[in-house]
């Protein structure tokens, strides 16, 4: 085992590209996730989130670029990387014929740093029956088993790929409790992808928005929300906007109403557009992550 690097990003992707025949799934993706941070990867269906995560886990070969985790090349040293990473996929593939305790024993034999205490604590937290077969577990219980197997070796990095898709609200809550417990107790670095933006706002400190394989945004959530505003303005009769503020994600004109979402909002933005567009009325609206995401994607779709 190599010594844990004390500095440097835990995840480092450089020009990562994946092409499936004619489809460009991930396009020249570069990204760094620092130690101890929680990174939420979001994007519409088919944006390339799972493909990116699979390449990060060394389960899919890239067409170009490189991926390093904890300072190690994931394709050159896959076993060493996986010793220190916990992964929960969208669909849980634990052998269905295994009993819970057999799945635990099987994984335990693979990891050098398996922690029985963590495993027992998670088993109790999730109330998993060790004698139950995997095929008899509900979707929620299976997700919890997957999380237990992913965190019981005290990984330095936890990667979750839409692990809560299809779970009922109670199972989601219990799963999130397990995740929060892991992050809070050990200060692990986490990368997760999800469609539930409330979870991202709750868990992540940094967010990345993928669209058609490209990383459109990679920012601290608070900064992103503070710097992204929707401006609702009323245009003079028969006029269209003459000046579009820099950093505009998306805009729509309906009648006299002009809606524009600006990514680089500053105190100068409103005076600038007032001055150049002779607007009757201007209102600045704060946005949640979901609105920012929707406007960004709508803007991209309109542009393409």
């Amino acid at each position: 085992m190599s010594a844990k690097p004390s500095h440097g990003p835990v995840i480092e992707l450089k020009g990562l590209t994946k092409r499936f025949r004619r489809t460009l799934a991930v396009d020249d993706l570069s990204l760094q996730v620092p130690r101890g941070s929680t990174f939420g990867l979001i994007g519409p269906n088919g944006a390339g989130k799972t493909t990116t995560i699979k390449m990060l886990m060394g389960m899919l070969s890239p067409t170009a670029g490189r991926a390093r985790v904890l300072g190690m090349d994931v394709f050159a040293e896959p076993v060493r990387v996986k010793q220190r990473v916990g992964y929960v996929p969208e669909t849980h593939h634990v052998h269905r014929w295994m009993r819970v305790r057999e799945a635990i024993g099987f994984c335990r034999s693979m990891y050098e740093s398996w922690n029985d205490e963590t495993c027992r604590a998670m088993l109790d937290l999730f109330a998993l029956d060790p004698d139950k077969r995997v095929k008899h577990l509900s979707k929620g219980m299976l997700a919890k088993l997957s999380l237990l197997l992913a965190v019981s070796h005290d990984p330095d990095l936890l990667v979750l790929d839409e692990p809560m898709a299809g779970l009922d609200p109670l199972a989601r809550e219990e799963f999130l409790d397990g995740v929060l417990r892991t992050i809070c107790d050990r200060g692990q670095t986490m990368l997760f992808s999800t469609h539930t933006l409330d979870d991202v706002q709750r868990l992540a400190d940094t967010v990345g928005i993928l669209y058609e394989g490209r990383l459109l945004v990679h920012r601290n959530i608070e900064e992103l929300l503070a710097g992204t505003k929707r401006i609702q303005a009323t245009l003079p009769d028969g006029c269209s906007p003459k000046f579009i503020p820099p950093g505009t994600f998306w805009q729509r004109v309906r009648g006299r109403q002009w809606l524009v979402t600006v990514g680089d909002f500053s105190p100068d933005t409103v005076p600038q557009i007032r001055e150049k567009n002779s607007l009757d009325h201007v209102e600045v609206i704060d946005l949640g992550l979901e609105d920012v995401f929707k406007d960004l994607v709508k803007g991209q779709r309109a542009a393409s």
Partner: protein
Amino acid sequence: MSWLIWKEYRHNRLIMIVGLVLLVFPYVVAVAIGWITALFAPELRGELPPWTLRMLGAALYSMALGQLTLGLLGGNAIAGERVDRSAEFLAYLPLSKARILSAKIALAAATAAVIWLLNFVVLLALYAGFEEGATPRALGNAWSNFASIATTGLLFFSVAWLLSSLLESPAVSVCVGLITPFLVVTALVLLNLLLAYHGVDGRRWVFVSYYPVCLVLAAASFAAGTWYFLRRVEP
């Protein structure tokens, strides 16, 4: 490694059970024929082949049926875990592909050893029961039959293994594995006919070449399947 071998056994348990039935069934039939005849038709006992020949037949049938188990194991080895997607589970564990493969090979080798050794020992015991020169002709031929069945089994396994490494369908892998020896025989027969058409008597060497052709094909298929699995990044 023991957990991996246990996982392999458990993953192939149905095949192992079928294999055990195929292995034992011919012997059960051979013994049952003797008992049933003795119990219900004692007047026919004289018409039955001697028990040594019944056991010889059982050993060769058991050996032949046992090779199907090897074909099933080869075809299910890699593709079986792709089709139920448990290969992805293994892919995110800190396991080298070589370790995964070693467990699969260990299980197949152990299974082949049981099938071959059991029937080999039975043949040896039957052979030992006769004095030199008094061995029945059928028993004398048994060794060459044993060798050709074992060679066929190797080809079943190796071709199924190659296909299993390339595809996601265990069924296709097994079927291609089982068909291959028949394709080899067909090719040799056609070659013989072609030679005969040109006035060359190739019967002797054409049929003797079944062994090396099968062994070379088996070795090449096994090596190619192993190489492809090891270098493939995807599960």
